[in-house]
């Protein structure tokens, strides 16, 4: 490899590590080997080669793509030339014509065309003054000029021509156009980043634009879009948690000897029981009781806990879930296996009786729980408490919790707050922590780690 390519490669690998993608030395070498056998001029092939050797988890992929576009940009400024075969001249055409062209791209333009158009639009609308005497590149000015979202009505009118509105056909077109708009926004953002990088250096922009990978996103600061993606991450984890709690009791017990089968098998070897057969071990099905804080202060986290509860509900044979704010209500009924998760959440918010005064009161909730549902906890139960242990300076009812824990088989507490904030202000995390082992759990990576420790 020529020197400059080596530098690029090394710089890229370092940037990936800085952005939280773990790339081992061996993997870096694999990538370098890969560069020698593929066609370097083919950019998508280069991207695929790097992805195959360095990115081993889908959560890291978005960050990887951003960095790849910076380190190996599709074009450099100044190369964009007027092409005679184009249907439209992006530099001179009126905004109305440009919007018309964009509309046609949104319903089935090739990726390449879309990218070129985005680059031309950044060139034309993207440069904006940024503070006195300075210029910068911005996505929003392009979006303002073309406002792709407002094209929907026009596209629907054209494509659906005469068909019924509101039905399947419209849904399909909407889906297609929305995907197109996202692709256009992404292409514009990529090109804007590239231009900024040309002006001020790759490293600087790289540090500020790469979002943390999904499994490190904080539950307390989660956005709606992340939540949808999180849903997909949480399901397999729930399955694993269920498996972990089950397997614990299966190890070291092979089940009882199946005498008849062993004897019958021994006939083949002249009555010598060469192979022993055992009855399949009966896996111990754990029961799970989940107590989750659903108050506003942890509302994003509550959303996640409900998600987890929902996923767990489908994995365990017997799960009872209880939500609390300052009083407690059983919410198991909202999580019927096979029911719709979104609907369950909505019904839960409207119907469950968890709020009395609207401020979290752990002590009161625990007391009410012990009183009303105390019999839910028995020697086969695992108890999982999800909450931030912030009790608004109310008595924590430690004895009640102690009693509940002593009656259960295992108990765990997942706390979404960073460990250093525990025991500050009204947090009684430390006190509860002496009764129930408390784990910091603010992102998927930590949840995964917690599940690992159960083994």
């Amino acid at each position: 490899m020529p020197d400059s390519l080596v530098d690029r490669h090394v710089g890229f690998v370092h940037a990936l590590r800085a952005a939280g993608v773990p790339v081992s030395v061996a993997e870096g070498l694999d990538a370098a080997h890969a560069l020698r056998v593929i066609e370097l001029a083919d950019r998508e092939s280069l991207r695929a080669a790097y992805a195959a050797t360095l990115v081993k988890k889908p959560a890291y992929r978005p960050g990887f793509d951003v960095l790849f576009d910076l380190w190996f940009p599709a074009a450099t400024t100044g190369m964009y030339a007027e092409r005679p075969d184009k249907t439209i001249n992006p530099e001179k055409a009126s905004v109305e014509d440009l919007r018309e062209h964009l509309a046609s791209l949104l319903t089935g333009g090739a990726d390449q065309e879309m990218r070129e158009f985005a680059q031309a639009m950044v060139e034309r609308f993207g440069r904006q003054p940024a503070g006195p005497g300075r210029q910068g590149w911005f996505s929003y000015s392009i979006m303002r000029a073309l406002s792709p979202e407002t094209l929907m009505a026009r596209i629907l009118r054209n494509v659906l021509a005469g068909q019924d509105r509101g039905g399947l056909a419209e849904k399909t077109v909407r889906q297609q156009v929305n995907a197109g708009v996202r692709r256009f926004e992404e292409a514009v953002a990529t090109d804007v980043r590239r231009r900024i990088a040309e002006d001020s250096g790759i490293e600087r922009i790289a540090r500020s634009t790469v979002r943390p990978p999904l499994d490190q996103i904080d539950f307390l600061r989660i956005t709606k879009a992340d939540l949808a993606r999180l849903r997909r991450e949480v399901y397999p984890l729930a399955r694993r948690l269920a498996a972990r709690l089950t397997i614990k009791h299966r190890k070291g017990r092979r089940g009882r000897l199946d005498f008849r089968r062993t004897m019958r098998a021994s006939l083949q070897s002249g009555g010598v029981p060469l192979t022993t057969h055992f009855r399949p071990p009966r896996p111990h099905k754990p029961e799970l009781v989940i107590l989750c804080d659903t108050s506003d202060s942890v509302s994003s986290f509550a959303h996640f806990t409900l998600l987890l509860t929902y996923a767990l509900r489908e994995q365990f044979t017997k799960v009872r879930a209880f939500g609390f704010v300052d009083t407690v209500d059983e919410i198991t009924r909202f999580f019927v296996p096979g029911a719709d998760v979104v609907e369950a959440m909505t019904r839960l918010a409207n119907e469950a009786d968890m709020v009395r005064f609207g401020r979290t009161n752990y002590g009161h909730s625990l007391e009410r729980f012990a009183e009303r549902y105390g019999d839910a906890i028995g020697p086969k139960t695992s108890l999982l408490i999800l909450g931030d242990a912030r009790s608004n300076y109310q008595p924590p009812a430690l004895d009640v919790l102690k009693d509940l824990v002593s009656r259960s088989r295992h108990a765990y507490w997942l706390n979404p707050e960073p460990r250093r904030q525990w025991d500050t202000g009204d947090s009684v995390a430390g006190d509860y922590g002496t009764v129930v082992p408390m784990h910091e759990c603010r992102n998927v990576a930590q949840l995964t780690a917690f599940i690992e420790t159960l083994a």
Partner: protein
Amino acid sequence: MFDSPADVTERLAAVDYLSDDAISTSVFLAAALGKPLLVEGPAGVGKTQLAKAVALATGAQLVRLQCYEGLDEARALYEWNYKKQLLRIQATSADDDIFSEEFLLERPLLKAIRSANPTVLLIDETDKADVEVEGLLLELLSDFQVTIPELGTIAATRRPYVVLTSNATRELSEALKRRCLYLHLEYPTPERERDIVLSQVPTIRADLAEQLARTVATLRALELKKAPSVAETVDWANTLLALGREELDEATVAGTLGVVLKHASDQLRAVKELGLPDA
């Protein structure tokens, strides 16, 4: 095995597997660098199919190890033929060596290693196997050899092309991932899916295939418990042909929803979200 990613695309297409840039490059690199290829992604995007297509395209034999919970060495690697050993002991003097080749029962992994012909080894649904099996695979995947205590180390006579698949229900170990190239397969874009339908169901009209692919993409965008797989899209195309439908209108979708959605709650959701008539 392959000359270039483009060559991969072409030869896979010849056996009716439509790949894209990422797939072709990964498949090519796995062959060129001699590394196993780990393919992850949701169920039904064509992971297993990819391994089969590679075997078919290169004229290699396919050896398949289906993983499941409780899979052990005896099922994956080798086993001693106890009965034969016992008979031998009874028939001859006891000092005869009963741990030699002729008493060895090959299981998929050993078979793939010892085969002199080009081989594609498919380790299917690796995530279903217990963690111990991953340990067993590590030696195989990094050095292409296995160790049998009584016989010694058996190295591959000819390196098999290894494809591992996983639905990512469990995170595979770092050590395993480090040894593999990684390919994350997602559902195909509507354009590619249309082409897949056209190649699998050649008699279907192009515009109907397009409509199918778009509708399936819309279904996948809903929050479903189980999104329709590519195979199910193809089934759907076949169903429409069998019913003689020319158009994918709302009544047709509602009537044949069961081909693509296999949960009652998913069907309810689709009917509600897409405004379909009650089937």
